[in-house]
């Protein structure tokens, strides 16, 4: 039975514990990360002639790693088959021994999941902690989240908890059908809203 992630946007405080747990568990270097947290802002403040301040400000956080998509762009373009989707769990991982290092997966992924690590000579990415999943455990990011904003399990269970795949700044789910179900906070908007902006671009890009 294939797996999916659930992200409760209404609980996420952007603490980055998921990101740190992942880096620690996978022994990633300082400039590597499999999971990113996007801080989304929108709106503005205004003051009327009486000095009364009103605002339309909104803030929320989106924590994502690889979304292990149903129709992954990375596996489609990979020439050597190094990028593969497990037929049982649905987790997408890279076989470093087969990887050519052409970077097509990096170009193709709409979520920025794969990165080309020249020190190891191949692409690296979140593999959904497939070894932990094989032991019946959940990915380390899910276990680490102090707000219980993340969950991982059978697709149907996660689908029942989440209401949407789409949340700014993520692109439309129609491209790759991410295995990600989201409960949106009131401040979250649907994809590509005009006044949303990423507040931490230097961190995530």
């Amino acid at each position, binding site marked *: 039975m294939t797996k999916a992630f659930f992200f409760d946007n209404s609980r996420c405080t952007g603490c980055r514990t998921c990101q740190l747990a992942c880096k620690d568990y996978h022994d990633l270097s300082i400039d590597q990360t499999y999971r990113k947290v996007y801080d989304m802002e929108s709106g503005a403040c205004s003051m009327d002639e009486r000095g009364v301040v009103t605002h339309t400000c909104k803030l929320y956080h989106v924590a994502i790693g690889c979304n292990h998509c149903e129709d992954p762009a990375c596996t489609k373009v990979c020439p050597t088959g190094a990028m593969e989707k497990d037929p049982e769990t649905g987790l997408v991982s890279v076989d470093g021994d087969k990887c*050519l290092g052409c970077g*097509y997966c990096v170009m193709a992924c709409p979520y920025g999941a794969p990165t080309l690590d020249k020190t190891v000579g191949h692409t690296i990415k979140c593999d959904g902690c497939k070894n932990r999943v094989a032991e019946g455990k959940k990915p380390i990011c899910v276990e680490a989240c102090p707000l219980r904003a993340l969950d991982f399990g059978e697709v149907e269970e996660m689908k029942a908890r989440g209401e949407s795949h789409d949340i700014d700044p993520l692109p439309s789910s129609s491209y790759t059908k991410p295995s990600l179900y989201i409960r949106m906070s009131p401040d979250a908007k649907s994809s590509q809203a005009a006044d949303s902006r990423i507040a931490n671009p230097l961190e995530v890009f």
Partner: protein
Amino acid sequence: MEALASHLPLILFTALCAIGAGAFLPMALRASVGGASPAKPGYGKLAWVPVAVLAIGFVAVFFHVTVPLNAPLALGGIGRSPLSNEVAVGGAFLALCLLYAVLTTAGKLSANANKAFLWVLAASAVVFGLFMGLAYNIATIPAWSSSAASVAMVALTLLGGCALGWLIVGLAGKSETTPKSVGYILLAVAVVSLVAAAIASGAESGIVAALPSFVHDTAAIAAEANGFIAGFTLCGILGVVCLAASIVKPSASRIASILSLAFVTAAIVLARCAFYLMEVGVAF
């Protein structure tokens, strides 16, 4: 500019392979028409010129990958990965070109066999150009996945090929005896290719400019790409003018065709720079 630097091997690969592959069209055209010909059919050692250009292009692409030794594994994705398809078609085309060069250098080809082989190579060159364009058919990068990318790549193959092939025809001592009609056909192909490539590239930058993005200033990226497209168009016009001069004025033919190749090469490199600048995905 940083993006262009990282894509330099791919810029060289696509530019040089387009020019080398397309050269077989003028060579085939000249081999097919009447007029006095040297005793030996074929281009002999000159057939190694487009092969060398292609080979340099293929060598350049190895500087793009981090594990070149895994290159044979790239054939495992044929039918699934557009990159694997390009590798397969390109490899087969290079092998055909090598075979032709070996046979014609050894004088093993009859006039009819030489003509047929050259037309197979000319047609295969167009197919290779098409697959070089299709290699970038990545659905999450809208400018690259449009049909304009393939149109542009085929057009660049024909444009570059006209310039290099006409020079080879001249070096083979065949241009003085070549009917002007052949030259005019090549000129027409070059003009149409230049226009098609410019329009296709402009269409791609239009796609980029219209893309919403949280991170990229897509209008600025499109404007920068348009600068390269303008440079491509200018160099392309100069290349075509020199090609025309080499056709209508046999006395200036050699110098004019060398200049044509130089301008067309610069044009194609600029067009490829514009293409790689437009790597703007649907992400963010």
